[in-house]
């Protein structure tokens, strides 16, 4: 019991004192932290004894500041009640006798209120200190003298004091008679509520302001609570208190009209918070495949999982693209446009009709598939369709532009975010430390992967040691150089060969197409796609073999490999596009011929009908019989769709054969084979992250390219991604083995993103080119009859907007305005670029400076330590008679010396800070997160101040130190 009282007294003192004890508390805290492990158990027992009284104490503390006045009246009666609190009572008496001078020190009181919560935190720690009787006593003395001052100063904040006293009273009750607890508690609560009602009228504006600040402070605390390095119990308690405090005082703030408004605002913010949280919950619930990815992550480490995360991200983007095209283009046309068979472009021509439903034709996206909403040609050029007057051509155009714009936005935004996250470390000054502390991947949850990881970490360390010793010499630099040149030459040959092959095949297929596809075999019809897919499959393997020649470090080798595959894919894609361009030109020539034929056909038809007009009613011509142009847009769309399909098929088949079949063979043939298949040559396959990511990226590029001419592409891609998510997850889990050298995925994330951006740019280029330069077909698609596709904008401006708008638009788009605008943008880009360059330079400079300073400092410190040691030795020699004695006392003089210095420097720091509090506040009990404190060594070596000028502190959710202690 005595212990409890002492504790309580102690904390009361702490509350009523100001700056002077801050220094000590910091020291104490630090020490306490250090010894916490040893003392923990004892403390726990004590805590339990104190039990819920403590909790209640804290709860009622919130109200203490307002309640003092009332409590003072009651105090005398109370005082007699408990004789064990004699000392405290005496102190209270003193307090009561203090004349309440009216020195309006609003600032001071505000600080008190503000610091309240942090005090509480501190108080908790103080209570843990209960056993430190000695320290307590010292403190008491010190604070006794502070006490009076405090009282005078706080004279006018009667209410707050009252609260404090009441709190004391309450505690007393808890401690002395546990039976009374409940009744007292109720009393208290009643009083609280009474006061709450009275309060707003009696508060001065300043106090209100203070209270508001306190409430805001609490709210901030609640927000940042999850970032505190505290045990959950403490967090929960703090949270509850803060919430109680906020709930209690929030509603009471403000007067009259303002009060209502404030209450309303508070209510709305609460609702908003709740909504936000629910929304957040909903959002996480919507993210698919979390568990799948987690499982893969634990089996294969973060690099393989990064592919699946990338895949999921891609899926999200395609979902949006799909929604755009499906909702704004395909569905309106299907629902509100003219139905199938009403006009020529929406009908299968007579010649094709018999085979239009054949599977082979449909599989090639001919027949009925070609004359449907899936492709460009089906759309009508009617300006507005349906009862909604939906502007179909405009919508088609805007969706096309919108998908590209959206993709750009998302990719760039993601890149920027990634850069922010990982843009910290590129210097090599902490090579070994990083290897030691960040090389273990905590995600790994599979013994095999863990084994691999252990092995790879060991090799990494061995390599690093070797490098460090610089004993590694290149055995034959000429040979490696020769081999590398040779390898690059071979790769270039491969690239050129594959490019030529594709060009050749596309040319040949055009010949086939002219002959008519029916007379050719399946292979000849699908040659282009098959060749492209096969090249994409086998060339990377070839590159892999070639790169074995080069003898690069695996990381470098990976980058080379990626670059080569990228070049291959890009080359293939562009050869394909060039060939396609040729085909477009052919089609356009054909179109001209058809156009001419149609006029003659129409004329003859008219003649016939005119001649027959007199005798019989006009013959209605079936739309299927009308001759029509080749419609190059649909052709392009079809090509892309076929490409995607064959690409998907190859991917899946490779997966099944290359991974699954191989795994099955290795697994079951191993029983009857002459060597160990599992450990030896074929073995199981590893998951090829880079190849898969590249495949995904190029697939996306094709989608972006072809989506304008085939609105079904995003839908197809969505399907593909969905299937490949499940298929690849399954394949990876059942037939792949973890990589032997586990590379980390981080950092390469933005590498992939950059590739995606390049591909996006390169794939929008041809699409934009075709849209801008080639006139649309005359008899199919939403833009038929216009000279250019983008004329639809002009048309809308002219007919759907008021006249002045189009006038403004046309005058704004004249060269006189556009050119200066472009110039301005160029200037702005130039300016931003140069500033960023200079920032970068400054950054590098600072880094260098920091490093040199660090080194200097180290040297200085070393010198100082040496000097100190020598001095000590000398002193010991000088005082040789007492040397033995000293030895007994100081087992390790150096260490202790240092400890002391440390303490001293800290003290200095605190007192300095006390005088001028830092601009922003720090929370938590860590003495550590501040910028490192320079240690002052006693031997005149003080030049080391601030060698580390504060490294970047990004977010506010950092661990900070106790703020209240730095205020009066």
């Amino acid at each position, binding site marked *: 019991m005595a212990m409890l009282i002492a504790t309580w007294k102690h904390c009361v003192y702490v509350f009523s004192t100001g700056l002077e004890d801050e220094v000590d508390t910091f020291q104490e805290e630090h020490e306490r932290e250090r010894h916490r492990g040893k003392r923990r158990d004892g403390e726990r027992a004590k805590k339990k004894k104190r039990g819920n009284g403590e909790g209640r104490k804290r709860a009622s503390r919130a109200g203490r500041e307002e309640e003092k006045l009332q409590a003072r009246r009651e105090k005398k009666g109370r005082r007699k009640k408990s004789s064990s609190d004699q000392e405290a009572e005496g102190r209270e008496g003193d307090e009561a006798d203090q004349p309440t001078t009216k020195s309006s020190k609003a600032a001071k009181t505000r600080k008190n209120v503000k610091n309240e919560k942090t005090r509480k935190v501190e108080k908790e720690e103080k209570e843990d200190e209960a056993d430190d009787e000695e320290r307590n006593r010292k403190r008491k003395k010190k604070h006794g003298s502070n006490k009076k001052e405090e009282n005078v100063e706080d004279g006018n904040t009667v209410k707050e004091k009252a609260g404090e006293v009441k709190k004391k009273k309450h505690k007393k009750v808890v401690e002395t008679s546990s039976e009374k607890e409940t009744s007292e508690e109720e009393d208290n609560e009643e009083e609280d509520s009474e006061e709450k009602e009275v309060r707003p009228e009696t508060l001065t504006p300043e106090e209100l302001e203070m209270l508001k600040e306190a409430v805001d402070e609490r709210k901030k605390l609640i927000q940042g609570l*999850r970032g505190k390095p505290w045990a959950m119990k403490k967090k929960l308690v703090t949270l509850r208190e803060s919430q109680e405090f906020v709930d209690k005082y929030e509603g009471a703030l403000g007067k009259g009209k303002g009060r209502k408004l404030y209450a309303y605002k508070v209510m709305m913010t609460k609702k908003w918070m709740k909504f936000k949280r629910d929304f957040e919950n909903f959002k996480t619930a919507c993210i698919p495949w979390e568990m799948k990815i987690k499982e893969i992550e634990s089996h294969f480490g973060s690099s393989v999982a990064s592919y699946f995360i990338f895949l999921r991200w891609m899926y999200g983007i395609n979902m949006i693209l799909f929604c755009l095209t499906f909702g704004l283009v395909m569905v309106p046309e299907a629902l509100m446009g003219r139905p199938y068979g009403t006009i020529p472009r929406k009908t299968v021509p007579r010649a094709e009709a018999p085979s239009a439903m054949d599977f082979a034709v449909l599989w090639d996206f001919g027949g009925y598939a070609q004359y449907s909403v899936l492709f460009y040609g089906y759309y009508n050029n009617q300006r507005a369709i349906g009862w909604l007057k939906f502007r179909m051509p405009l919508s088609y155009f805007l969706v096309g532009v919108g998908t590209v714009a959206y993709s750009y936005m998302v990719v760039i935004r993601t890149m920027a975010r990634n850069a922010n996250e990982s843009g910290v470390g590129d210097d090599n000054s902490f090579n070994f430390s990083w290897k030691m*502390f960040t090389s273990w991947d905590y995600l790994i949850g599979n013994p095999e992967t863990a084994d691999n990881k252990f092995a790879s970490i060991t090799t990494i360390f061995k390599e690093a040691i070797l490098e460090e010793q610089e004993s590694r010499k290149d055995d034959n630099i000429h040979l490696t150089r020769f081999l590398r040149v040779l390898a690059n030459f071979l790769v270039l040959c491969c690239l050129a060969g594959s490019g030529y092959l594709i060009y050749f095949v596309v040319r040949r297929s055009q010949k086939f197409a002219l002959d008519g596809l029916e007379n050719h075999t399946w292979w000849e019809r699908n040659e282009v796609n098959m060749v492209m897919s096969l090249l994409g499959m086998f060339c990377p393997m070839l590159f892999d073999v070639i790169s074995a020649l080069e003898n690069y470090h695996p990381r470098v080798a990976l980058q080379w490999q990626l670059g080569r595959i990228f070049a291959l894919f890009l080359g293939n894609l562009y050869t394909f596009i060039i060939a396609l361009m040729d085909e477009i030109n052919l089609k356009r020539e054909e179109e001209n011929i058809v156009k001419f034929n149609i006029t003659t056909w129409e004329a003859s038809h008219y003649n016939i009908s005119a001649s027959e007009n007199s005798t019989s009613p006009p013959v209605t011509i079936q739309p299927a019989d009308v001759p029509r142009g080749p419609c190059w847009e649909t052709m392009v769309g079809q090509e892309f769709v076929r490409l995607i399909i064959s690409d998907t098929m190859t991917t899946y088949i490779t997966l099944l054969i290359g991974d699954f079949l191989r795994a099955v063979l290795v697994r079951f043939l191993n029983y009857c084979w002459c060597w160990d298949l599992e450990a030896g040559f074929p073995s199981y396959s590893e998951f090829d992250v880079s190849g898969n990511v590249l495949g995904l990226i190029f697939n996306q590029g094709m989608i972006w390219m072809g989506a304008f001419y085939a609105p079904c592409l995003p839908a197809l891609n969505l399907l593909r991604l969905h299937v490949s998510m499940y298929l690849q997850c399954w394949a990876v889990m059942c037939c792949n083995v973890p990589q032997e050298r586990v590379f980390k995925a981080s950092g390469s994330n933005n590498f992939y993103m950059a590739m995606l951006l390049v591909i996006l740019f390169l794939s929008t280029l041809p699409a934009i080119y075709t849209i801008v330069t080639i006139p649309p077909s005359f008899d199919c698609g939403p833009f038929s009859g216009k000279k250019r596709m983008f004329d639809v904008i002009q048309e809308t401006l002219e007919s759907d907007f008021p006249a002045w708008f189009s006038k403004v638009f046309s005058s704004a788009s004249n060269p006189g305005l556009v050119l200066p605008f472009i110039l301005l943008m160029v200037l702005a880009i130039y300016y931003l670029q140069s500033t960023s360059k200079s920032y970068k330079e400054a950054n590098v400079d600072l880094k260098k400076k920091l490093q040199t300073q660090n080194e200097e400092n180290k040297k200085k410190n070393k010198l100082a330590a040496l000097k100190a040691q020598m001095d000590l030795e000398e002193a010991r020699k000088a005082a040789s008679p007492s040397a033995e004695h000293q030895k007994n006392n100081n087992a390790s003089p150096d260490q202790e010396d240092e400890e002391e210095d440390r303490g001293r420097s800290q003290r200095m720091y605190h007192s300095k800070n006390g005088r001028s509090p830092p601009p922003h506040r720090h929370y938590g009990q860590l003495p550590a997160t501040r910028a490192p404190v320079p240690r002052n060594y006693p031997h005149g070596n003080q030049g080391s101040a601030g060698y580390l000028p504060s490294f970047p502190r990004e977010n506010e959710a950092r661990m900070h130190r106790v703020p209240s202690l730095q205020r009066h």
Partner: protein
Amino acid sequence: MGNKQTIFTAQQLDSYQDCTYFTRKEILRLFDRYRDLAPQLVPLDYTCQPDVKLPYELIGSMPELKDNPFRQRIAEVFSDDGEGNMTLDDFLDMFSVMSEMAPRDLKAYYAFKIYDFNNDDFLCKSDLEKTLNKLTRNELTEDEVRMVCEKVIDESDLDNDGRLSLEDFQTMIVRAPDFLSTFHIRI
């Protein structure tokens, strides 16, 4: 599980959400994971805050921790009693810190504690040696270990006291490119 509302009160869930980086669903999932470790020990009703602790042997056998060389340290650091026996609160705390959302500093603080084997608030040579041996499964020779530890201290010890304090550690770790992605357990 039936009705999820019976495990926690809405208020409890809210406060857990305030104190961790988890959403409601994740908290419930974590509770399920926790309970799965010892269904006979953990009650299905946490509204009255039962005093349940799972021993380290159970916590360490979770697949997420099973292969981690530092699992014992992790459990010790996050448990209230310092011996690896965890309450649900400790459990949530642990995975909150290890979650993707936790800020770098918080992670750095706990990483320091995890690598600080002897709880003296400094990473001294013995701590580093232990860390390294755990990382490489004692495959490095003594000389190599000594050399690496010396290098680490040489690189990161800014105040030159022959051991790494929390400040040193944080200065070093905030620049590490892989720290956030590797010091992370997905649950």
